[in-house]
């Protein structure tokens, strides 16, 4: 797109030393606006775009985040890994000797993988389920919403706000909102309250032989306490995730080149074919991003389970296990760190895939 290149060149500000003596007359010609022959030189005949000051600024801009990233994120991961080789209790010498202060090798990992700590595999399974549900239920739902909202519907802004509202709320708040839905007592929880209302109050329905009884029976369900409570909890997460995906996808659709759609229409594609054969493939960068974000959302799932029951059975997640071991009265810093290391390694997988794909795109 030649227009864009020209405007990028035009955006170089006159304050730049290389442009000090450039012609003041505005010109739309690229060479006039950006006089390559007057750029600073390094060595013989090799013109260079950056002055020493530019390099310094660049070094700072790249260097500071890099140092912070290495110190705060990679440094923490390394420290975390070292802790995971101990049974440290969090105070005093880490390996000074005695229970709570010893090097235990890979013992912590052994306890996790062999099932001596039975909650680990349960939690890992819950995380996988969380991921699958977000990926195969929530994300397609979000894309569907985006496609619907992309059409010219009346009150578009209203719908968009409605779907995006949950995303603005923190997961902690989402947790509290859904607690009000799921509370087991009919006079406290909305869902059981509604079922109770149909089973006991609504004249016709309560008298239908099986239906009325069904409402009465289901109205005592313990949505967040039964063995399968991970499902209601992930539905609460879905409520938020759908809005998230919708907004991301909608932004992508807004930037979608309409001529492609027109071309598809001329070729006689129906709207479903247009979406799957034209829109979806073109949106590949957004699709990858959504997959990565969904994976990360599933791995960092924490708040809902923790708000609901502190991450106890049946809502164990890897993140709550870390909290309940390392950051609680249990004071099992070493053991909790081992779980954190595993979670960190698992988290690296989608990030690496994402980076690899992005870089490959850029090379093209």
């Amino acid at each position, binding site marked *: 797109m030649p227009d864009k290149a020209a405007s990028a060149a035009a955006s170089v500000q006159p304050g730049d030393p290389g442009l000090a003596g450039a012609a003041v007359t505005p010109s739309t010609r690229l060479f006039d606006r950006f006089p390559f022959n007057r750029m600073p030189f390094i060595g013989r005949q090799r013109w260079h775009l950056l002055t020493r000051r530019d390099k310094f600024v660049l070094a700072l801009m790249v260097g500071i985040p890099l140092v912070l990233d290495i110190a705060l994120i990679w440094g923490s991961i390394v420290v975390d890994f070292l802790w995971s080789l101990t049974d440290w209790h969090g105070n005093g010498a880490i390996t000074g000797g005695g*229970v709570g202060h010893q090097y235990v090798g890979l013992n912590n990992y052994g306890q996790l993988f062999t099932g*001596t700590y039975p909650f680990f595999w349960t939690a890992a399974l819950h995380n996988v389920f969380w991921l699958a549900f977000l990926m195969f239920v929530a994300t397609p739902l979000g894309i569907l919403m985006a496609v619907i909202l992309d059409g010219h519907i009346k009150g578009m802004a209203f719908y968009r706000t409605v779907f995006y509202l949950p995303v603005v709320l923190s997961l902690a708040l989402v947790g509290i909102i859904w607690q009000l839905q799921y509370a087991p*007592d009919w006079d406290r929880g909305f869902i059981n309250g509604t079922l109770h209302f149909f089973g006991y109050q609504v004249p016709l329905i309560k008298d239908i032989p099986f239906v009325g009884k069904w409402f009465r029976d289901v109205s005592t369900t313990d949505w967040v*306490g039964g063995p399968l409570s991970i499902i209601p909890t992930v539905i609460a997460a879905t409520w938020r995730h759908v809005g998230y995906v919708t907004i991301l996808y909608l932004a992508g659709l807004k930037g979608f080149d309409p001529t492609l759609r027109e071309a598809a229409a001329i070729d006689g594609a129906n709207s479903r074919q247009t979406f799957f054969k034209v829109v979806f493939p073109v949106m590949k960068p957004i699709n990858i991003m959504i997959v990565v974000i969904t994976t990360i959302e599933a791995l960092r799932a924490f708040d809902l389970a923790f708000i609901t029951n502190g*991450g106890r059975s049946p809502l164990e997640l890897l993140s709550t296990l870390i909290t*309940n071991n390392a*950051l609680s009265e*249990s004071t099992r810093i070493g053991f909790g760190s081992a779980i954190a290391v595993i979670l960190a390694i698992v988290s690296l997988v989608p990030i690496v895939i994402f980076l690899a794909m992005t870089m490959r795109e850029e090379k093209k």
Partner: protein
Amino acid sequence: MADQENRAGLLSGGQVSRREILKKGLIGAAGLTVLPAVIAACSSSSTATSTPAAPVATPAGATPPPAATPAAATGKVTLGSNLSDATPKAALAAAVAAFNVANPGITVTTNTIDHNTFQTTLNTYLGATPEDVITWFSGYRMRAFADQGLFVDISDLWAGATGKLYTDAVKTACTSYDGKQYMIPFDTYAWTVYYVPSLWKAKGYTVPTTLADFKTLAAKMKNDGIVPIGLGQKDGWPAMGTFDIIDLRENGYQFHVDLMAGKNKWTDPKVANVFNVWKDLLPYYQTGAAGRNWQDAVNGLLAKTTGMMLQPQAVQVAIELEKTKPGTLADLDFFSWPGHGKGFDDEAALDAPIDGFMLAKNSPNLAADTASAKTLLAFFGLGATQGIYAKADSSLIAVASDADTSGYTALQKKQVAVIGAAKKLTQFLDRDSNPAFTGPNGMGSFLIDFLSKPDQDLTPFLAKIQAFQDSLGS
């Protein structure tokens, strides 16, 4: 109270989520949108409200107790309190006000920290810059921190006047592995079965004295359309009390404490028996326990939809309801868990957890404040001070033997009688055993697992518990 305010609060949840956000770094725009709100939530939870020796009026009629030391003492002491709910907070302020009357030269600065935050961050709090004196719990929950050298040995206070005010059982609850005392007891409460007498009278129910009677009564209640046994297990601990009491009645005090201490095995058939006895009672339990907090369960009891409930401090909920529904408090009573006829009924053992005060070793001011801090601890150890506290919060009672019980409510007097009649007292499952073992992803989860799947094969279930306990080392 061990975990009573364990309702997972917005604030504490938010705090950890910030950690998550920072840790995971790579998050989408939505996370960033949320971040400021979460940080705001954090700061409001961790910034403790400081009440500098609030001149709260001492309840009328409460005479200031005699000073424990010469009133001439001057100095400062800081007090880190987890009593963040209105009633206990005001009750502690009343006790501190009484201290100020007796020791005008000593300034007490109270720092009240949200109960839940206090509990989850205690380890780092004690390792960083804690207050001089802090509120905490007895038994292993104290020992775990004392063992790490985070509390100061106060055996000298126990050797003096304070020690004479307490029974040996109380002293043991305040003693760590090294045989030294680290806690001054302040209040206690009994785990008993609460019920509403007017409902029982109307239905013709009588207090059961044997397990068979208890079951017959529960069946009768179920027939009458009443939920026989209430339970709110959301915070993870109430069902532990049921395990304790059944084990105490079926296998006796010694077996129970040895099991808790890791000397007996969970794979012992006697433990399976406890779960089997419990299983027979489960059909009479309130459904949906895991999603209900204990206060709501007590509300069901007070609303007469639930027949009875093993719970401590049900009075706290009744006090709240009394404001809108007078007469609630007067229409609440309790009885001790019935006998099981296994030869241990005479022990009349029950859970009676003790809360108290410790001296935090890492307090930056402790070197200067030790004398005044110990004066404050000795003052809290007096029956008269505890009387002021128990008067302001009638769900609990004083621990000291010289406490004036004449001003107690009927239920407080009954608690004194029940605890006095017990030949053996236990603290509570999460205070009689290693905190790492009893934590949310430990016994907290195992018991919920049992409650949601009571028909599971107990052999692998108990083997899992034993393997977990073994993996914890000491």
